[in-house]
């Protein structure tokens, strides 16, 4: 009976911890195996501890090149999709124009459509246009599918924003430019940041659409996929772990910043 009460009191905590474990277990395995020294070409069985891969992360041919390319594409796709998507979101919320409803649902389509279909039709389009497959076709494709996510994230934010705030700013001597920088943008910023983060993550690990439209260019996910056929170098785990740590670091820093700001104000 005592055990039962004890469980009941901590049910939320226990459920939370279990969920966290479920989410983090794969990451832990990836991290642990980045310190492995496998026998043969596959890194699937624990042999013994080694930091070889960490000391030489670019030791596998072409891997760091593809990683650099992926980061580059993700960065540009994020910038492009965030800028375009933010403008589209503002237009859709703030203005009434012909075909607004149609645009609204068309923007949503890439999220709902199976990626394979989108990838294949994009390839058809590029081939018919006679475009050379590579960096630019990948970038265009990434911006396209990231756009929907940015629009959705920013739209939600702009919709909940009181239009009187901008009127108040104009009433208080802020011109159009100042109103945008001092009021509109800071208030929409969380939505824009969320859209940008999503874009970066989606673009960085996209495989299907990229694979169709890359030609002979190889991005990091394509490299991982390709090498998995022939053997998995430990360096892949090293990169994965590093990415994970960078992300965690980001979260921690932003949490610290908000907390400090909160303390100052209080």
């Amino acid at each position, binding site marked *: 009976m005592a055990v039962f009460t004890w469980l009941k009191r901590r049910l939320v905590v226990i459920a939370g911890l279990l969920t966290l474990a479920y989410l983090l277990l794969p990451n832990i395995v990836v991290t642990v195996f980045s310190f492995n020294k496998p026998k043969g070409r596959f890194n699937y069985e624990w042999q013994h501890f080694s930091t070889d891969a960490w000391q030489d992360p670019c030791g596998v041919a072409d891997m760091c090149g593809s990683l650099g390319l992926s980061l580059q594409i993700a960065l540009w796709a994020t910038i492009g999709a965030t800028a375009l998507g933010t403008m589209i979101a503002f237009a859709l919320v703030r203005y009434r124009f012909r075909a607004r409803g149609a645009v609204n649902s068309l923007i949503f389509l890439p999220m709902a459509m199976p990626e394979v279909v989108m990838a294949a039709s994009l390839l058809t389009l590029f081939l018919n246009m006679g475009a050379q497959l590579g960096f630019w076709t990948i970038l265009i494709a990434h911006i396209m599918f990231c756009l929907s996510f940015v629009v959705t994230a920013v739209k939600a934010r702009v919709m909940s924003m009181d239009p009187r705030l901008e009127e108040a700013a104009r*009433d208080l*001597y802020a011109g159009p430019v100042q109103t945008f920088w001092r009021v509109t943008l800071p208030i929409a910023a969380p939505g824009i940041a969320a859209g940008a983060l999503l874009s970066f993550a989606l673009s960085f690990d996209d495989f299907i659409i990229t694979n169709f439209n890359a030609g002979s260019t190889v991005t990091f996910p394509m490299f991982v996929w390709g090498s998995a056929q022939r053997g998995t170098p430990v360096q892949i785990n090293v990169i994965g772990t590093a990415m994970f740590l960078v992300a965690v670091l980001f979260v921690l820093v932003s949490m610290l910043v908000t907390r400090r700001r909160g303390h100052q104000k209080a």
Partner: protein
Amino acid sequence: MKTTTDGSGDVRLSGIGKTYGSFTAVHPLDLTVPQGSFFALLGASGCGKTTTLRMIAGLEEPTSGTVHLGDLDVTGLPPYKRPVNTVFQSYALFPHLDIFENVAFGLRRRGIKSVKKQVEEMLELVQLGEQARKKPHQLSGGQQQRVAVARALINHPKVLLLDEPLGALDLKLRRQMQLELKRIQTEVGITFVHVTHDQEEAMTMADTVAVMNAGRVEQLGSPTELYENPRTTFVANFLGTSNLIEAEVDSRSGGDIVLRAGDGKLLLPEARCSAPAPAGGKLLVGIRPEKIALTHADDAGSVPEGRNRLTGTVADAGFIGVSTQYVIDSPVAGALAVYAQNVERDTRLVPGAEVVLHWNPAHTFALDAAQDIDAGTEEEAAV
């Protein structure tokens, strides 16, 4: 912050109007708000009062006419170039800035560097000195309202515009803020233009009230003048309650018009008749409920001569403490409202009792009978 009388703070609207497609929100109107006054635009929702206010602020572009502040024509100026500030109905405080920065916003936009002293003084004026570093959502509704006032006032505008600023507050707080706003206005001497649908609010706060209806100003004047001498049925019914009785002009005697309502005779001072009154013409005779005295039919003889009198039956009596509100059924005029102070109350005045209604003819007013007799009543507003 001193009150000047050079007229540089007058707001002059000339022929200003606004249409949206085929809908006319505001019919071209002329209005002058004198420097330093507390001016109220009163009307039901959708009457064009907020649109008028927004045209003064520059947030709405007028379809016709001009807006002058003193001698300055501001019609073509964007809101950020007008020496006018607004307190919005939703307050529109910037959620990402703290109270201090909200109040400092206007000063900073005009490139003023040392804002600390001014902001602190302004926060003191609205009694929010302690809250400077809080975010707007951490304050109560009344406090947010005061921040909105402070944020506007710190810029020493020529005119402060208030768009239903007390609409979101509960009744008690609203009464308190009415006095507070009035105090601030007297203290800073800035012209206030206040938009409201609450007639009591307009009457307690404003020096001058403009009653608006369907995009037009129905009547403009001091609260007393509007109440005692309404010129349209809308004003008569919207401000308080009026008994309106259809009557026919019979003759004239001295400075009075003699009217015939059913078989009764009513006197009306000529000066209090706002419509042409040819013999045989129709008028709506108005009398406020608190001006009427009731006497039981048994004592009809004690009613002094020279008073307007009607007869009727008590249909309903509602006791509300300071007064009793009667509804009297009169064969001539239908249902009439009478408010009697509860002093030396006649206990015979219960439903069913025969009574004589009488009042001093000087309190009678008359309106053009060609109007809707129910304009501005609550029944009409509910439709």
